[in-house]
């Protein structure tokens, strides 16, 4: 992956190539050994390139290859890996290169402006909403339903930004306190500035290979054991936002495929999507890794620390590493890859983690995308 940063000199195509090349080099492979390429990238409006997928193809190793672009908002980073998985697991390809990229700095004055048309033109846009509203409305509902305090939410920012200090790609790694978070300006109550991930430029990539090919390439393959995805209605004001049903459904789809029956016991590391601090907790509950309303307590008890019983977001997540929309989810998959191989350096969780789950989210509080990875090859 590339460094995640506020604005990169590189064009979107060059960012994609930097990540894709790094993935190939680390697997000691050449481009002609790749059978197909998959790109995940969010709306053309961010990078400002119409037909962005076609433009990026050169940087994703897509030149004269079967090529697929997929997009489900922020869920893309994990979803693209699932798309690549289909191509290999179906027997169609032996190898696939999955690349996710975003260059949000192109969008002026702020990528927020491009988001205005995510809202319904008749029932919502005339109210001049902004994206902060939907996160704030969801966070309020979640807090109110379970009597969660702002301090409990702020702890996520503290943990993730601290974890990010160990990540060489990090945009916002820092040592902060709960007090710092609550003292930061209120953007849209109950959301404070230090609870929000930044907009970023960046790219991340993974190489997927069929079993026999993978075993030839490395002595420590990491296996995709399960994939899942689920989309809820766009009528987001007709739902109770306190709980992400769609994340639960996506999670069970992936867990069933992976043969996981008790996620809390069988998952060793979790990388849930954390664009806002409360979202990590919200998603942990959807992922069945904490009972409804209990994630904040488990966090306060240290269960989710890097050396806790279930390390959560050891990478530093979107809050610490950065949020180039599509690439962020893939960054989480990269993290699980390094963690399960013992290559995560200063971020390495202790013990010998064998199984992890990465989850991404997107759209109008709508999509859950989940991938379960592990050190054991799935049985046929």
């Amino acid at each position: 992956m590339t460094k995640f940063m506020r604005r990169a000199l590189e064009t979107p195509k060059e960012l994609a190539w930097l990540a894709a090349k790094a993935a190939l080099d680390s697997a000691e492979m050449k481009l002609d050994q790749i059978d197909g390429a998959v790109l995940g990238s969010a709306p053309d409006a961010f990078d400002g390139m119409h037909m962005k997928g076609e433009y990026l193809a050169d940087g994703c190793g897509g030149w004269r290859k079967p090529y697929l672009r997929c997009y489900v908002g922020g869920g893309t980073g994990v979803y693209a890996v699932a798309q690549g998985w289909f191509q290999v697991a179906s027997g169609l390809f032996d190898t696939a290169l999955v690349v996710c990229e975003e260059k949000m700095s192109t969008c002026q004055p702020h990528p927020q402006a491009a988001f205005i048309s995510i809202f319904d033109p008749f029932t919502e846009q005339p109210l001049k909403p902004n994206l902060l509203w939907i996160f704030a409305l969801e966070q309020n509902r979640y807090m109110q339903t379970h009597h969660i305090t702002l301090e409990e939410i702020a702890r996520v920012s503290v943990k993730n930004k601290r974890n990010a200090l160990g990540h060489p790609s990090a945009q916002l790694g820092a040592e902060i306190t709960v007090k710092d978070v609550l003292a930061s300006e209120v953007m849209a109550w109950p959301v404070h500035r230090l609870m929000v991930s930044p907009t970023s430029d960046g790219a991340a990539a993974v190489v997927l290979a069929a079993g026999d090919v993978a075993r030839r390439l490395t002595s420590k393959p990491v296996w995709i054991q399960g994939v899942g995805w689920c989309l809820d209605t766009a009528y987001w004001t007709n739902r109770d936002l306190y709980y992400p049903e769609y994340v639960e459904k996506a999670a069970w789809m992936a867990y069933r495929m992976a043969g996981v029956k008790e996620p809390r016991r069988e998952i060793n590391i979790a990388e849930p999507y954390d664009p806002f601090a409360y979202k990590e907790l919200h998603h942990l509950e959807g992922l069945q890794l904490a009972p409804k309303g209990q994630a904040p307590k488990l966090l306060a008890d240290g269960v989710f620390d890097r050396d806790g019983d279930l390390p959560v977001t050891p990478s530093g997540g979107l809050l610490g590493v950065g949020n180039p929309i599509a690439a962020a989810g893939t960054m989480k998959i990269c993290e699980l890859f390094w963690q399960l191989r013992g290559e995560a350096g200063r971020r390495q969780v202790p013990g010998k983690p064998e199984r992890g789950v990465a989850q991404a989210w997107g759209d109008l509080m709508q999509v859950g995308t989940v991938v379960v990875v592990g050190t054991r090859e799935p049985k046929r």
Partner: protein
Amino acid sequence: MIHRTIKPEPNIVQGTPLDAKDLKRGKIFLNSYAPALRYTWDTGEAMGRYLAELKNGRLIARSCRKCERVMIPPRMFCERCFRPTDDWVYVKATGTVNTFSLCYVSWDVRRLKQPEIPAVIEIDGASPGMGILHLVRKVAPKDVRIGMRVAAVWKPPAQRTGSITDIAYWMPINRRSQRTVSAK
């Protein structure tokens, strides 16, 4: 806050970060383009009627006889049963706050002194949980509560155009009862 930099690990390449000063110095070649993205959205049957009724000072919903939901905003097909919806149903212009926020940042990223109060308001007469997005006013930010009862305040008929903003805002129904509403 302490920021530290780390040596690159395998598989991580840096990329070239720029800051605002780099752009000002004129050594970075840039190009800019503002596409003229002007749209005319067709309302469709459901929205067409919804907006026309708003102009008349009324809220209207659609019902599905199969799942027995009364849905607002109205729609011509039920997304759960995947069949056409059945009837038009007028609903009340009163409701309950399902969730709200106090937003100090405008849509174009300007800081606001007084917060806007967006809320999801569950509409009386529609199925439980059927909310719409709108703005709450005439209440101190610290007094807004989930569960608060609100009523629509309409623009005068001459000012209505057939838009969700024909409702200017929502305000608490009973000012007196605000003081007796419990904290959570």
